[in-house]
């Protein structure tokens, strides 16, 4: 898929809470086919402190309306600037970037595991899997009930299991504490979230012999395999998260 540099127009900037928001962007040209797990590199204009683009995973795609959604957490000056975008503003992006999650075998039981803002690519993935005839289950972990994002969207895809660290909604604890991991059988797990969570899920999958793919979020400058800054150590040596990832099978990673 050819990569593009294009101006998109902000259709909507919707706040989910104080520091999480969803940007809905409309393309001026028809969108190419995008794949779950891919990301965009967002240009932030106007400040010398946000010199580089910011990699943001694709949260959802609407081909009919020619829009993509980005779920973003304010984590620094770049994402803070993005949070202030308004309807009609222009956002320049490079896309589509990165590989994508692989499709599971037919009839396999699939679990999506997400934590915090890391749930972002799982909505696109869940909808995609559903359109391909799969029936994924979804396990999501958040700090507390106020941090739960897009629950109404995930529940449309399949069964959703929740954990919160303070027990204010769902099971108390981390995703790895949820009984569904013991009670249900899974063939394929897709995971995105904080590194500690992904490592814990990877351990669980390795022990159970479950195929597991994780989506990484390394610091990068370019996003298309040139700067070599976003490397992750793998059985094949240092690979770029931006072109060889962001999705990796856990058996490849030397964590």
């Amino acid at each position, binding site marked *: 898929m050819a990569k593009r540099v294009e101006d998109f127009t902000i259709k909507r900037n919707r706040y989910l809470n104080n520091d999480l928001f969803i940007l809905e962007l409309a393309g001026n040209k028809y969108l190419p086919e995008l794949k779950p797990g891919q990301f965009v590199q967002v240009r932030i204009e106007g400040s010398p402190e946000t010199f*580089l683009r910011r990699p943001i995973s694709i949260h959802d795609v609407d081909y009919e309306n020619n829009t993509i959604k980005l779920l973003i957490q304010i984590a620094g000056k770049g994402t803070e600037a993005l949070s202030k975008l308004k309807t009609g503003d222009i956002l320049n992006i490079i896309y589509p970037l990165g590989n994508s999650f692989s499709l599971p075998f037919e009839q396999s039981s699939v679990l999506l595991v997400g934590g915090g803002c890391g749930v972002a690519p799982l909505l696109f993935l869940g909808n995609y899997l559903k359109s391909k005839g799969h029936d994924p289950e979804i396990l999501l972990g958040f700090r507390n009930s106020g941090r739960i994002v897009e629950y109404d969207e995930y529940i449309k895809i399949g069964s959703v299991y929740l954990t919160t660290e303070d027990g204010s909604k769902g099971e108390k604890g981390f995703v790895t504490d949820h009984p569904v991991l013991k009670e249900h059988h899974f063939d394929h797990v897709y995971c995105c979230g904080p590194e500690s969570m992904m490592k814990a899920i990877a351990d669980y999958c390795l022990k159970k012999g479950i195929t597991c793919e994780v989506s990484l979020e*390394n*610091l990068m400058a370019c996003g298309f*395999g*040139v*700067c070599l*800054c*976003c490397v992750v150590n793998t059985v094949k*040596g240092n690979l770029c998260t931006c072109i060889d990832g962001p999705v990796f099978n856990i058996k490849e990673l030397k964590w």
Partner: protein
Amino acid sequence: MVNVGVSIGGLKFKNPVITASGTFGYGSEFDDFIDISRLGGIILKGTTIEPREGNPYPRMAETPSGMLNTVGLQNKGIDYFEKYIYPKISGYETNVIVNINGSYVEDYIALAERVNKLDRIPAIELNISCPNVKMGGMAFGTNADSAREVIKAVRRVYSKVLIVKLSPNVTNIVDFARIAEEEGSDSISLINTLLGMSVDIKTMKPALSTITGGLSGPAVRPVALRMVWQVANAVRIPVIGIGGIISANDAIEFFLAGASAIQVGTASFIDPQISIKILDGILKYLTDKGFSDIKEIIGLINR
């Protein structure tokens, strides 16, 4: 029509816009974005004799108007290059230049000999200025005797156009430029990155795995421009200006200060089409100002 062709060591460049090593991969990464054959030249990712894994992550930190990196010359080595990369670059109608690096003088000699045999590579950029490797790299480029030794040794075995890339991390860059000229290099490119560092106050650790790294981007431009001006006034061989160029206006500053060509580096990370935009901007500037040849503005402030 404005003439923007320049000649470096007898090698013709259709225009003075070259992409900098380490910021342009092997070219193919930009095929989706630009027509590479429009560029004056491209300088490929730094190559060593042996494959190198580079430095541990994290390798990058954003800084005001720039970035620090500590990639550490990750590359697959010259064997892989000859076998798999070299055949792919033949389609580009531009000067494809290899940037060579080593830990020992012998490495540079062996690499120069190998690259000398590659018909499609008309020039090498001798990198004696990488700040992110434990051995070699900048160590050659910040000591006058070892700089002389490595340039002399490479010149002896390399018959095509030799460009020496200088480190700014020295007291007097003119000394090193003169050494390069005396030892027969055809051109000097400068500057490589400035040694810098950054600390993450959340984790209370250095931002880079190697603590220090190379600073690039517009933050270094005034320093680069000053050094290019000093060197252009001190040597007779053509100078290639590098350092924080993100627009045609920036490039023109370097021409006026004495650079015969420029390299676009970090800017390509942010806008992969920037090299072509800079070229178009240079053409427009020259046309608007009524110049017929870029040579008319090279070193204009020094006349």
